[in-house]
């Protein structure tokens, strides 16, 4: 890097991870398929939010707000298309998750499991709050709660899953 160059981007001490070709889209599709499959056969699986976890993982890893929000948009729209919700409902929520996740990942090191557990729980609650707010404002549906017991349970469940899922996805990183 020359002294005259101006670097604007992630913090220099933060590593930006890259993945093999196809890993991101395959992972997204698998997450969506499992999300559509599990709740049908296992009622307890309704607490799991695999598309959210996948979006969060790649946003934290790639550490690019632009990439993160675009990934969140795509994942959310796909999830909307597979459910009864209007297109854009999950898309808005996951777009924000991807943007803020990438912004956060660009500033701090999120490799530690404790951080991943906390971030996953917080972003689950954030994702649900955005979803409820969008439903109220745009759909005029006021029956979507912002916070209750099942939502807290879901945040803990997904945070726990993130501890195991994120290291599994780390295996698909390109070795630099």
């Amino acid at each position, binding site marked *: *890097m*020359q002294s005259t*160059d*101006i*670097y*604007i*981007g992630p913090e220099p001490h933060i590593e930006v991870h890259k993945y093999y070709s196809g890993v991101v889209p395959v992972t997204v599709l698998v997450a969506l398929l499992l999300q559509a499959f599990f709740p049908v056969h296992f009622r307890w699986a309704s607490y799991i939010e695999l598309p959210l976890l996948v979006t969060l993982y790649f946003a934290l890893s790639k550490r*690019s*707000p*632009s990439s993160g*929000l*675009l990934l969140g*948009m795509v994942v*959310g*729209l796909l999830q909307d298309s597979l459910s009864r919700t*209007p*297109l*854009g*409902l999950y*898309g*808005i929520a996951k*777009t*924000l998750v991807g*943007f803020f996740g*990438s*912004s956060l990942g660009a500033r701090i090191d999120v490799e530690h499991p404790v951080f991943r557990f906390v971030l996953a729980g917080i972003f689950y609650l954030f994702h649900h709050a955005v979803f409820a707010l*969008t439903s109220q404002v*745009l*759909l*005029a549906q006021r029956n979507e709660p912002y916070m209750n017991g099942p939502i807290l349970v879901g945040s803990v469940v997904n945070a726990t899953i993130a501890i195991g899922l994120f290291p599994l996805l780390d295996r698909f990183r390109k070795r630099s």
Partner: protein
Amino acid sequence: MPPISSRHRPLALLAVVMAAQILLLAVQIKRERQVRLIRVWAVELISPFQRAASWTVLGAEHGWGGYIGLRQAQRENEAMRADLDRLKVRNAELEGKAKEADRLAALLNFRTGHPEAPMLAAAVIGGSPDAGSQVVYINRGSRDGLRRDMGVITPDGVVGKILAVYPDTSQVLLISDRESGVGALLADTRTQGPVKGSGEPLLSLEYISVDDKVAAGEAVLTSGQDRIFPKDLPVGTVVDAVPDRKSPFMKIRVRPAAHLDRLEEVLVLQTRQDVNMKREAENAAAPAISPTAGETPAVPATVAKAPSNAR
């Protein structure tokens, strides 16, 4: 060399993506009455500007119309004020003519009601420049057959007598003048005494004894003793009567029956024949004295002391 990226590019991209997804939702969602949310948003977005534009245009129209209207209203107001002023003047003229017509009608009725006493109507055309003398000028003179010492009356009562005669004008001495005197009597007690003027609005009835009963409000009539006025013409009304400490007579003040301060038309008596002021007695009473019209006996300007009726 690392790529150069703008700090605001991710935020701009986020805003675009969010807006696109919100529009996508708006196109799909239908609110009440099956109206798509995007239409609701579009209408809600445009309607404030429409209302503002409409308010501005209407306000300008109303303002301009109001300004024009005010200008027109001001012109109309000025025109109406001018008309009002003209009408006020005209109304005053008509009121004056109406009152004059009433007075003339009263004079005519008085004359026609008393055919036995020839009278000549005259208009008061001026007064004396001297405030101390109570005289007026009428528009009748010797050419009309008037002579000196003819009595002058109105339907209300005695006014005075002719002091001087000119070809077309005559001078009338009012009964309120200091030099004037009228032979009079009290209507109830028939006590006689001269009524003299003092230059003041009220007259003075003299030589009435303190033993005589005089009540306020009692009528004072002509006695005919002065040989100018016929008998029983109204002279005035007693205002008050108090004993005079310096004499055996009373001080009696009399308010004139005729409005001496508002004379406009008068009647000149061309005879001393009694004029019956009451319609009921017109047929019964015989004419008392009937000199020919135009002939009046010589009578001094002032009335001499009346014969005492005190004792």
